[in-house]
């Protein structure tokens, strides 16, 4: 597996390209792999992720489906049981609620209900998150919510390498894996080693080291958090930034090692605050390193309101760099 060391010939790509490359590679490497979903073929994908794949792999392996979320997800489960390695694309996380029965009642339980006889190697990709003024039926961040469900894995690639590599690893996984791609990341550009491949999906990664406070985040909030760390550094507050990468399972070790060093933690999560994955992380930190804490774990989440259309309200509802900076400064000041 790639350990993140760039290859010799890095290429300039977007997050969108990286996901597409991951899918292309999978389609090339394994005849059992196919992708299906609404408009993944002729239209090229609602976020243009699958653009060109129909022409390259044909309609048998790049399948446009009718508007039937519950059934094409269920068909993905069945195809996986039948020996295929399906990648199902759901356009946006809100639409996945139509497939909730198949995901939670079947995909997550079937291996268990069958006493371990059947595994479901299914990958479900979907766009998540706010920031594009798409309002209350296209903008939510439910990845942390899905992380409550035993039997599935929940991944949130925040970098180009993960956008490409997690797809590859997920396809090799014997169980259902949900991959949440923050729609605000698709245009993010950067260098990716052309030989980029599967990445480890069990571990969180420290994206920046620092001794004063641990900032724990994932997906669309990683950038804002790294920006905050940068600003804080100018004020001599050194933040360690942990990118969770996987919301289920959570990598407790990486989190606790960091918090045990910094004695302070802030979780930045685009999910609504109550019952978010940030609550779980806060609870685990208390359970595991309570006596190392200099101050209570703090959370910066999305305000508990359906995402509003108006830009100023939408931005006010979301976690922002300034909020992180202000909170950390106050935290450090009060418990210097």
């Amino acid at each position: 597996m790639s350990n993140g060391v760039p290859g010799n010939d890095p290429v300039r790509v977007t997050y969108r390209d990286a996901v597409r490359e991951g899918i292309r590679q999978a389609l090339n490497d394994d005849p059992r792999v196919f992708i299906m979903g609404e408009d993944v073929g002729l239209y090229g994908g609602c976020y243009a992720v699958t653009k060109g794949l129909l022409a390259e792999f044909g309609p048998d392996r790049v399948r446009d489906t009718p508007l039937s979320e519950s059934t094409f997800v269920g068909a993905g489960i069945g195809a996986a049981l039948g020996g295929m390695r399906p990648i199902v694309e759901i356009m946006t996380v809100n639409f996945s609620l139509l497939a909730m029965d198949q995901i939670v009642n079947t995909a997550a339980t079937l291996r268990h209900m069958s006493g371990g006889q059947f595994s479901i190697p299914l990958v479900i990709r979907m766009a998540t998150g706010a920031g594009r003024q798409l309002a209350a039926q296209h903008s939510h961040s439910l990845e942390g919510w899905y992380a409550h469900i035993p039997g599935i894995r929940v991944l949130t690639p925040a970098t180009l390498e993960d956008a490409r590599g997690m797809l590859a690893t997920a396809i090799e996984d014997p169980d259902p894996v949900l991959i949440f791609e923050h729609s605000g990341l698709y245009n993010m550009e950067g260098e990716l080693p052309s030989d980029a491949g599967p990445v480890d999906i069990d571990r969180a990664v420290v994206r920046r080291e620092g001794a004063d406070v641990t900032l724990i985040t994932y997906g669309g909030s990683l950038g804002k958090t790294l920006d905050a760390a940068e600003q804080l550094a100018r004020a001599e507050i050194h933040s360690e930034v942990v990118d969770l990468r996987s919301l289920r399972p959570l990598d407790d070790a990486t989190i606790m090692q960091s918090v045990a060093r910094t004695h302070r933690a802030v979780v930045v999560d685009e999910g609504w605050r109550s019952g978010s994955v940030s609550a779980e992380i806060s609870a685990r930190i208390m359970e595991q390193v309570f006596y190392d804490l200099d101050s209570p774990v703090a959370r910066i989440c999305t305000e508990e309101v359906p995402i509003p259309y108006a830009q100023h309200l939408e931005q006010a509802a979301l976690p922002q760099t300034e909020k992180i900076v202000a909170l950390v400064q106050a935290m450090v000041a009060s418990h210097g």
Partner: protein
Amino acid sequence: MTTADTLLDGAPSEHVMELLRGMIRIRRFEEKCAELYSATKIRGFLHLYIGEEAIAVGVMAALSPADAVVATYREHGHALARGVAMDTIMAEMYGKQEGCSRGRGGSMHLFDAATRFYGGHAIVAGGLPVAVGLALADAMQKRPLVTACFFGEGAAAEGEFHESLNLATLWSLPVVFLCENNLYAMGTALTRSESQVDIHLKAGSYGLRSEQVDGMDVVAVENAARGAVERARMGEGPQFLELRTYRFRAHSMFDPELYRDKAEVESWKSRGPIATLKTRLEQAGYLSDDDLVAMDSQVDEEIARAVAFAEAGTWEPISDLGRDVYTPRSQS
């Protein structure tokens, strides 16, 4: 398919002129919206109704003010034709608090209590169960009202379509289902999404009355809608109209349109609802160039006023962010 001539012959020309005006009003409004979108005054997703105006205008002409309307994310035309004030619609697209949804909804979520316009639903087929419930409420309260429920042919593949048609028919509820069949769901042609491409037949299999209508002919649409609305109002149960139409523009402002060829688009444009009616009215001698000029300038003035209203609109204070998640106890 019903044709208009029956009505046009001897039909009150003022009324037909109003229908024409209604369509032009929607067309011009949306052309302005496209402009404002490029100018980034309007953001998010913008789904234009251009080409399909005859449906909203014809159907709304058949409804009574107390009837209910449920629409989709492609609903500017429906809101305008229903009588939602243009300035509040435009302000909504700007995200101003003077908007019809106070800036919380945007283009996809127009709402208006005064005209019983219940949205503005951006989950495909998600509006159908809600419409069934609105009709149930009217039926249980013995109100002689109907609920008009608009959706695209793409919605016909969703489970909620199936469940809603069954329930409405089983309970004989006053819903008029209006399927705007523009042949594509984003990039997916009907033939690639439905094993039964004749939507009106598909709907008929639930045992409700179902008709296919030329959605490019506003008079035909109004005729069919009047019949359906009256039958529903008289207690004959749910009605289904498949309105054959075409989307002249891209699905949304992000659509490269790789899935249909220009020739097809052009051939449909050639029978556009506005051009066709204009010609017919001119030939019938109802419509003069002066009338048209007057109409256009009247519409353009209204649009200019709406834009001015939206521009002058104000941003809701951020301190109000938490509003309208729950109903204040005072209101309850």
